[in-house]
């Protein structure tokens, strides 16, 4: 494990834990930004430069700005926990441990076959992605533009103040 890789791994883990531990939503949002930047670094180390750039621009930039903007717009304060929500933590933790155990067991069983495959990794990533996106996946790609149009219209209609 090289030093930058370890740093990004630790940053992602710490950010995710901090998202849970922080009481104020704005602190949680900043923790999530740390996770996203760390993941962008991991994508770079994995040789996915384009995805790393999109991760920082779209996730770290656009989406998180939207979150921070809404938090400030609604003046969100410290979250309050009732006794029921504290009780929800115990079965939640149990569920997460079970889920993690299941995933770990599955990985431990199947990791050999993945590692055995030859790692080419020599494809020019961005050129290859654009080739696939505009040849093999051109219909899904066009559909996403429609999806974004519908989402923008929906968000506008939802957040609109009623006229009456």
């Amino acid at each position, binding site marked *: 494990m090289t030093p930058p890789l370890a740093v990004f791994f630790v940053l992602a883990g710490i950010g995710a834990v901090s998202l849970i531990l922080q009481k104020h939503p704005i602190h949680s949002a900043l923790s999530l930004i740390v996770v996203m930047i760390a993941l962008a670094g991991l994508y770079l180390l994995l040789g996915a430069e384009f995805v790393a750039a999109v991760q920082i621009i779209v996730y770290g930039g656009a989406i998180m700005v939207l979150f921070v903007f809404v938090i400030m717009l609604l003046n969100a304060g410290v979250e309050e926990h009732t006794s029921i929500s504290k009780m929800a933590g115990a079965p939640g933790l149990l569920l997460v441990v079970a889920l*993690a155990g299941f*995933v770990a067991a599955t*990985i431990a069983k199947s990791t050999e076959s*993945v590692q055995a495959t030859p*790692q080419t990794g020599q494809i020019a990533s961005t050129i290859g992605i654009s080739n696939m996106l505009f040849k093999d996946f051109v219909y899904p790609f066009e559909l996403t533009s429609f999806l974004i149009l519908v*989402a923008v219209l929906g968000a506008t209609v939802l957040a609109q103040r009623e006229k009456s």
Partner: protein
Amino acid sequence: MVPTSYYIFLSAILFGLGVFAFIFKRNIITIFMSIELMLNAVNLAFVAFSQALGKLDGQVFVLFVIVVAAAEAAVGLGIIILIARNRQTLNVERVDLLKL
């Protein structure tokens, strides 16, 4: 070369933390952020497998996931603004209009 399983383990951990935050958190915005965390965890698995198998399909899928996440964030935050305006609260336990 780092084994792919490292990345998959990190992805599983992030996803698990996202699920836990989704259950444990009470602020509707933080719950929404934990969904984004889960999407990010899945993206990491996609990219790791894409690199391990030497195919770019995974990275193209990540782009689609990011587009859907952006659309989802726009609509979701619109709904959150609507809830905050109608119920004057961001606590999901106070949003109980459907409860008997």
